[in-house]
């Protein structure tokens, strides 16, 4: 069992927990406002309540350290340490954050630029971000993926997909 003597509070974790707690409380409030009846809240209320308590508990363990809280709550053994620590701790945070940002931007842009154009730029930008420097390769790959997906959208899907220029090109062919 790892010693918790040198426990450092992970503020990122607390931030995440704060969001989770905020969601919990908001959801409980909005569900109750929609219909404050037993049948509506039959599952949400107990689950939400337990979840909120757990969230607070985890927050406390993050602030004060696991064993400290355990002792205070008079529990038995600490639960952790059977498995390895998260793989998600290593890796370049900046790159990951930028990647996540690009992806979010990509999806947000689809209704405006069209799936084809958005995909092209996304693939291009991501390749560059992740270190790909071969220009011809990047351009061809981005074009290829965008083209392939556009063709798939035009031929396979029974409902329309927002496309920038692909549909016009397709009609032209």
């Amino acid at each position, binding site marked *: 069992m790892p010693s918790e003597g040198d426990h450092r509070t992970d503020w990122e974790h607390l931030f995440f927990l704060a969001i989770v707690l905020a969601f919990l409380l908001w959801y409980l409030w909005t569900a109750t406002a929609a*219909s404050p*009846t*037993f*049948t*509506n809240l039959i599952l949400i209320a107990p689950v939400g309540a337990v979840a909120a308590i757990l969230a607070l508990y985890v927050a406390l363990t993050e602030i004060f350290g696991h064993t400290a809280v355990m002792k205070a709550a008079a529990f038995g053994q600490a639960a952790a340490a059977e498995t390895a620590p998260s793989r998600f701790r290593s890796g370049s945070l900046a790159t990951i954050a930028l990647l996540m940002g690009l992806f979010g931007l990509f999806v947000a842009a689809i209704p405006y630029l069209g799936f084809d154009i958005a995909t092209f730029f996304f693939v291009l930008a991501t390749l560059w971000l992740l270190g790909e420097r071969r220009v011809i390769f990047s351009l061809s790959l981005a074009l290829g993926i965008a083209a392939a997906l556009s063709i798939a959208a035009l031929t396979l899907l*029974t*409902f329309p997909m927002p496309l920038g220029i692909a549909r016009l090109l397709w009609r032209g062919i």
Partner: protein
Amino acid sequence: MTGSKNTRLIGRRPLLWMLAGAASAGSFSTRRALADSWPTEPITIVVSTKAGGGFDHMARNLAPALSKELGVPVNVLDKPGGAMVLGTKYFLSQPHDGNTLLVSGPSPYWYTDINKFHAGYDLKDFDILNVQWADKTGVFVPKAGRLQSFKAIVDAIKAQPGTVSCGVVRDSGEFFNAGILIESLKLPPSAIRLVTYEASAPLRTAIAGDQLDFGMVSLEASLGMLSLINPVAVFNDTRIPEIPDTPTVNELLKPDGITVEFVPSSMRALITYADLKEKHPDQYARLHDAYKKVLHDPDFIAKAKKQGIATDWLGAEQSLEKIKAAYAIFDKHKTLLSAQ
């Protein structure tokens, strides 16, 4: 344009006749040309449910026949989601011309969509061309169930209120009919244990498995399960030919002097835009006539019947009346909507 005014080779009278003939011929051909110019593009029938349901089936059945009549391809586009709201909204977002049609359920689904889900549209945004296929409510019991007749059910409810379980699909026509039935029997809503299901297939299974004392579910699809469930009553004006021995609910309650004002179950209609008649009267006329023709074609009727699809023609006026009548009954029992 007709001939020149400078021609004097032909006398005035015959000229006038010729002019009149030419004029009518010219305008006739122009009118024909205009009418013939639509449709030129494929037509899409939007279905506001997922593939495979009754609505989708009706649309896919109609599409090839309409295509033949109108001379352009007719495609079916399923746009399910949000209890029909998404598909209907999608339909409204398309250009308001004859190139997009809608197959949806103005009753009972739209009633809930408009009144409970704040869908944002209203009946008056649409022109219901025709309610082609209206399902009915059937009351079914498990083959091995403890209550084997409608009378037994009613007696059990009266004798031990709050012990008889009844299954319905939530916020369906049957759901309303269950509430209306209990009211007609002058009993409080708590007289039956109403168990709500999300779709009719699990409800039918529950009845078949003797999990419920009885269930009220759409009739037509249940006819495939008659080896496991027994029909004991139908909510209709007349008996159903497929199950001729099953009496109607009002037949059964007549001796007690009770008449149940029930709502029809799922009504499936072909729908266009409210402003189509005004903006593109020729397109509206073409659509209307083509659709009417298809539904009166004996081959089409026979083929649809084999697939279990109805081909009723009520026309726009009667269809709207029927829907509004149903809405009036829903309005009377609006408390059922928000009942828990």
